[in-house]
């Protein structure tokens, strides 16, 4: 059980800087997900916490102890790898007990702890098998079991579900979430899959190009993305953006002309960027409605319709050139080639200035959507 604190952490490979001074506080018992596109530095950051990569500058504290230059095995962390990284010549039991064996733990104690972790993960029938005799999901469970056995302060997961098929991925996702609620250890989880991030995290850290873009609970990021990148990254399908001309602006509102020519007024905090001529308006696919109940109506030409049963994705063009995605009800009558109207409400729109920064005031995040840890802190 431990806090993790990163202070101005920098990673350089020769002259190339990949992590640019990251500050991050992770509270004891939090489930934190690092998410971002390929090459954003999320895995590097995790490996720096693990001790597999040196920290070029800055400090890392685990459990209030500076571990910046402490060896990986002494940091009290355990890691689950994407490739599982099970020792192929050892049985499941030996794999799980290897860390304790290296630490010269008493044999009876190793057996007790391996048996206990195996019970938690229902691995008991597999203990005498070798990894090659296990399925992907079982291997991943063994890899997790190996970390539990060591009873680390912090669990680290490096894209652990990427090698599993879709169904197993959902199943393991739930198991890892359950495990967290059972063990209550601090966990840091790296993924490029924003659904995994949204479903598992107490706190999501969105990274891009070696910088933190935003830190917050999943719903906070969904409701109040601080910039265009986070808005586009969080939420599936991704948010639609259109360029709009600014007609008039006051201190707390903007009057915009939409691409279709319609004019509307939106509340906006424009104190940071006065004199704008163009802004980006963002609207999530699920906020576009098939009925005409919304405040703003837009006409679109439908290109592709995907019926998923529970919902329907409509890929369409708006004003001839702007591509957009609409998520509607499961049995939508919209067909390919149709020209139809959709509507949306202005309070569900996001606005971004030319630098991509959000211009809208933050919406309140419902307390019940926050993680227990955050609830406890705010309560």
């Amino acid at each position, binding site marked *: 059980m431990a806090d993790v604190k990163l202070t101005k952490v920098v990673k350089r490979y020769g002259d190339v800087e990949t992590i640019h001074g990251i500050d991050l506080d992770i509270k004891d018992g939090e489930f934190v997900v690092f998410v971002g596109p390929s090459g954003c530095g999320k895995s590097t950051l995790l490996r720096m916490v*693990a*001790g*597999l990569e040196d920290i070029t500058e800055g400090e890392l504290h685990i459990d209030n102890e500076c571990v910046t230059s402490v060896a*990986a*095995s*002494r940091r009290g*962390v*355990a*890691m689950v*790898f*994407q*490739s599982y*990284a*099970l*020792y*192929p*010549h*050892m049985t499941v039991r030996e794999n799980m007990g*290897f*860390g304790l064996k*290296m*630490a010269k733990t008493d044999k009876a104690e190793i057996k007790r702890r391996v048996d206990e972790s195996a019970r938690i993960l229902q691995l008991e029938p597999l203990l005498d098998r070798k990894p090659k005799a296990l399925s992907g999901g079982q291997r991943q469970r063994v890899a997790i079991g*190996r970390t539990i056995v*060591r009873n680390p302060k912090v669990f680290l997961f490096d894209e652990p579900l990427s090698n599993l098929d879709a169904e197993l991925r959902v199943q393991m996702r739930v198991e890892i979430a359950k495990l967290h609620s059972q063990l209550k250890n601090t966990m840091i989880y790296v993924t490029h899959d924003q659904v995994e991030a949204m479903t598992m995290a107490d706190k999501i850290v969105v990274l891009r190009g070696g910088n933190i873009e935003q830190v917050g609970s999943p719903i906070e990021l969904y409701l109040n993305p601080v910039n265009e990148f986070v808005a586009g990254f969080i939420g599936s399908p991704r948010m639609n953006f259109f360029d709009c001309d600014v007609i008039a602006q006051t201190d707390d509102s903007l009057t915009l002309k939409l691409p279709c020519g319609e004019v509307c007024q939106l509340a906006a905090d424009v104190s940071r960027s006065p004199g704008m001529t163009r802004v980006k308006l963002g609207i999530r696919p699920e906020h576009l409605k098939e009925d005409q109940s919304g405040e703003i109506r837009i006409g679109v030409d439908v290109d592709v319709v995907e019926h998923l049963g529970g919902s329907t994705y409509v890929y369409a063009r708006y004003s001839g050139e702007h591509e957009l995605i609409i998520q509607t009800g499961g049995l939508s009558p919209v067909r390919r080639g149709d020209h139809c109207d959709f509507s949306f409400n202005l309070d569900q729109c996001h606005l971004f200035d030319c630098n991509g920064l959000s211009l809208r005031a933050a919406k309140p995040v419902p307390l019940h959507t926050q993680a227990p840890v955050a609830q406890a802190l705010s309560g």
Partner: protein
Amino acid sequence: MNASTSVNSSDTLTVSSGRSAETRRPPRKRYVFLMSAPALLGLFMFMVLPFLMALGMSFTDQRLLSPNATEWVGLRNYDRLLNISWLVQEPVSDADNHLKQTADGELVYPRLRSVLRKNPEYKEFKEFTHWSFGDKRVVLLAKDPSFIQSIINTLLFVILVVPIQCGTALGLALLINQKLRGIFLFRTVFFSPVVTSIVVVSIVWSFLYHKDLGLFNHYLNAMSFGLIGPVDWLGDPDWAMPSIVLMSAWQAAGVQMLIFLAGLQGISGDLYEAAELDGAGPWGKFVNVTLPGLKNTTIFVVISTTIQAFGLFTQVDVMTRGGPQGSTSTVMYHAVTKGFREQDIAYGSAISVIFFLAILAIALLQKRFFDKREDA
């Protein structure tokens, strides 16, 4: 199609449809045979046929140059090769029943040659070695003692060279697997002895090993401040074989090094990182990740090195000619000496047949041993 013109019309249809099916699907077997024919022919002419001839010759008294007709001699050559026997000698005592002793206090035994000549059972046998057993002396006899000596030398060479060569190769592979600038240069340097002719290497090392002029003795002398005197590396029966072992391991380790390097690069980096997090040090990682990861590579390297080591000939031929006192004569060297230098090609053939069977057996045993461990 031309073939079908001479037959009647109904047959033409069948034949031509058969032909068209054939053109659609080329006769694979024929091509396979055609393409592999040159290699198969070579193998047959230079490996299979000579071996069969050797097998046949080993049952005759064929000599390379001889005015006498070749005769069928059955298993005589094999009998000469493999027949061993022993006899126990009582010490000689005088009239008073006291044991006779030499001036050095050693017991006196009846002259072996007289004993062997007197007894037709020991016809053709010569002494291979002897040892004392209480007052008695046990003499081990063989029809061809130098063949038995050669077998022992060959086994000694294999037992010494396989671990040294494989160990060196693994060590070098670990070194050149580092991600360092200019590591390519080291790979080339470590591999270069392999592409140098073994004859050249043997001659150069003969100079290095030279008792008076050799570099090794010079350095040994200098580094031990004259305490370690000149060692007669190739002239001392105790040192000759180890000297050849060292040189052979040095010369051939490059090949195994490359194979080990390929094996090392096939081990996932994640395993090393997992081991690091599990608290394994460099030795722990080597034992728990590297060695198990190289298991299949090691099996291959050990078997191929063993087979190669059994064929030791060139180094011996160039450096020691089997000496001193037969201490470096190997089975291969003995076969060549008997078969070509002494022109007894039938006997040389028998040696090669036995040698072939022995290597086959050892390779199969090794494979079974490793297969069993695989299952375990």
